[in-house]
C-alpha cells in the first residue's frame, strides 16, 4: 500500500506533457472557434473582424466584450439551409446507426461463437479494413456503383435490368458508404462484450429449459447492452459530422451539417458562420459525447 503511494507521484508527473499538449491543441482551439463564431463577417484576410485583441489592454477588451454579437447564431436559426442540414444529419446518423446495429450484431455474435483460436483471426479480419484508408474504401465503392460500373454490368448481364441504374449520387449510395466505413466501429465493441460472456450462463439457461432463442433474448442480449451502447455512440457521433462520404456518394440535394460547415468555410470563406455551425454541431453532440466518455472511463479504468 505504501509502495503504491510512493509510486503514484512520478506516474502523475508523466501526465504533465500530454496534459499541456491537449489543453494547448484541443481545449484552447475551441476558445478561438467561440471567439470567431461571435465576431462579424468581413471580406478580408483572415476573413473576419476580430472583436478583441488582448494586447490592447483591459479597457479595449472590456469594450469588445460589450460588442460580442450573436448575429451568426441568429442567422443559423433563421435560415432554412442550416436547420435542414442539422436535421438531415440527425436523420442520417440515426438511420445508419440502426442499420449498423442490425448488421453488426449478428456478425459480432457469430465471431463470439467461434472456437477460441478462430476468434483472433476473425477479429483481425474485421480490423484490417479499419486500418485501410477509408477514403480508398469509399473510392472502391465508386468504382462499383458508377454508371458503367461493375454492379450495373452484372445486373445488365443477368438481364435483371434493361438499362443502367443510377446508383452513385443517391442517398442509398451514401448509406451504403457510411455503413461500410463504420461497420468495424460497431462490430468491435459488440464483440468485446459478447466474447466476455460466461458460457456457463447460457448452459444454465439451457438446463433450466430455455430454448436457444429464449436464452439469447433473456441472457445474451441484455448482458451485451454495454457493448450496444458503446457501438451506437462510436458510430452515431462521428456520422453526424460526416463530410467525405456524403460529399462523394450522396446527391447534390440537401447537405449534412459537416458539409455545410465545409462549404461555409472553404467556398463562401465565411469563417464566423462556419464557426457558429461548428458550435451548433458541438452542442448537438455534447450529450452523446458525455455518455461515451462515461462509458469509456468505466470500462477502461474498471479494468485497472
Amino acid at each position, binding site marked *: 500500500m505504501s*509502495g*503504491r503511494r510512493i*509510486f*503514484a507521484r512520478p*506516474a*502523475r508527473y*508523466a*501526465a504533465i*506533457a*500530454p*496534459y499541456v499538449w*491537449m489543453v494547448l*491543441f*484541443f481545449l*484552447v*482551439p475551441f476558445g478561438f*472557434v467561440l471567439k470567431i463564431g461571435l465576431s462579424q463577417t468581413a471580406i478580408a484576410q483572415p476573413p473576419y473582424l476580430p472583436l478583441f485583441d488582448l494586447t490592447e489592454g483591459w479597457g479595449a477588451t472590456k469594450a469588445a466584450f460589450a460588442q460580442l454579437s450573436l448575429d451568426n447564431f441568429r442567422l443559423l436559426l433563421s435560415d432554412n439551409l442550416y436547420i435542414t442540414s442539422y436535421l438531415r444529419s440527425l436523420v442520417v446518423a440515426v438511420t445508419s446507426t440502426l442499420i449498423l446495429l442490425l448488421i453488426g450484431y*449478428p456478425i459480432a455474435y*457469430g465471431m463470439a*461463437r*467461434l472456437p477460441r483460436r478462430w476468434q483472433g483471426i476473425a477479429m483481425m479480419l*474485421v480490423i*484490417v*479494413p479499419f*486500418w*485501410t*484508408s477509408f477514403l*480508398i474504401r469509399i*473510392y472502391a*465503392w*465508386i*468504382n*462499383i456503383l458508377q454508371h*458503367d*460500373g*461493375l454492379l450495373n454490368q452484372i445486373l445488365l448481364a443477368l438481364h435483371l435490368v434493361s438499362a443502367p441504374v443510377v446508383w452513385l449520387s443517391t442517398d442509398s449510395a451514401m448509406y451504403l458508404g457510411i455503413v*461500410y466505413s463504420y*461497420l*468495424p466501429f460497431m462490430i468491435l465493441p459488440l464483440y468485446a462484450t459478447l466474447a466476455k460472456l460466461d*458460457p456457463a450462463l*447460457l448452459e444454465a439457461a*439451457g*438446463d433450466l429449459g*430455455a430454448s436457444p432463442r429464449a*436464452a439469447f433474448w433473456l441472457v445474451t442480449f441484455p448482458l451485451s447492452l454495454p457493448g450496444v451502447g458503446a457501438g451506437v455512440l*462510436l458510430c452515431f457521433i*462521428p456520422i453526424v*459530422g460526416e463530410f*467525405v462520404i456524403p460529399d462523394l456518394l450522396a446527391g447534390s440535394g440537401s447537405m449534412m451539417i*459537416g458539409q455545410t460547415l465545409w462549404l461555409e468555410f472553404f467556398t463562401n470563406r465565411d469563417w464566423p458562420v462556419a*464557426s457558429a455551425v*461548428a458550435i451548433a454541431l*458541438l452542442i448537438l*453532440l455534447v450529450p452523446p*459525447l458525455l455518455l461515451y*466518455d462515461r462509458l469509456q*472511463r468505466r470500462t*477502461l*479504468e474498471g479494468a*485497472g
Partner: protein
Amino acid sequence: MARRVNQISRFNVTSLALGLAFLYLPIVILVIYSFNASRLVTVWGGWSLRWYHEFFNDRAMLDAAWMSLRVAAVSATVATLLGTLAAVGLVRGERFGGRALFSSMLYSPLVMPEVISGLSLLLLFVALNAERGFWTVTIAHTTLTMCFVTVVVQSRLASLDRSLEEAAMDLGCAPVQAFLAVTLPLIVPAIAAGWMLAFTLSLDDVVIASFTTGPGSATLPIRIYSEVRLGVKPEINAICTMVIAFIAVVIVMASFASKLSSSQAESAAPL
C-alpha cells in the same frame, strides 16, 4: 441440452461470412482493376502495370506521398511518446487535479467529427500566425492520434499485474526504475501497435489535413480526394492498391507485435 444453447449455428456462420465478404469484396475488386490495361475503368483490357508507371511519373502525387509519409512518421512518433505518458498517468497516477478533464479531452477526439477538430485547430494556427504546412498538419495529427495511442497502451497497462512492479520496489528498485525495468518491457508491444495505428490514421486523414495544410503542401489523401471528386481515374486504383499493400505490411508487423505481447505477458505473469 446445454450444448445446444451454446453451439455455433448455421446462422452464425452465414452472417459472419456475409459480413466479411461485404467488407472485403470492394477492396479486392479495386486491387484487380488497378492492373487493368484499359483506360476505361469498366472494360477489362488485360493485365498491365501501366497505371503504376503513371504514378511514378506523376511528380505532384509523388510529392504528396512523400509529404504524407513524413507527417505520419513524425506525428506517430510524438503521439506515441505523449500517448504512452498519458496512459501511464491515467492508469498509475491515481488521482490528480483535473483528471476528469484530462481523460475527457483524450476520449473526445476519438469520436468527435473531424470537421470540428480541423476547424478549431486551423483557427488556432491563424491566431498564432503560424505558417501552415508540414508542422501544422503534424501537430494536428499528433493531437488526434495520441488519443488512440493512449487507449491502446492504457488497456494493456490496466491489465498488467501491478504486484510485479511492487515486488521490484520491495526488492529495492526506485519507482521509476521499477517501471522502466519491469513494466515498460511488458507494454512495448502495445506501444508499437499504438505507433502503427497512429501512423496509418495519419496516412488516412483528409479532413483535418485539408484544414491545417497550406498551399503547396498537400498530403496524399488530399490529392486522391480532389482527383476522386472529378471522377474515377485508373491511376487512382494503382495508388490505392499501393497504399493498401503498404498498410497490410504495417498490419502484419502490428499483429506480430501483439502476438509477442500476449506470449510475453503469459510467460512473465502467469494468471
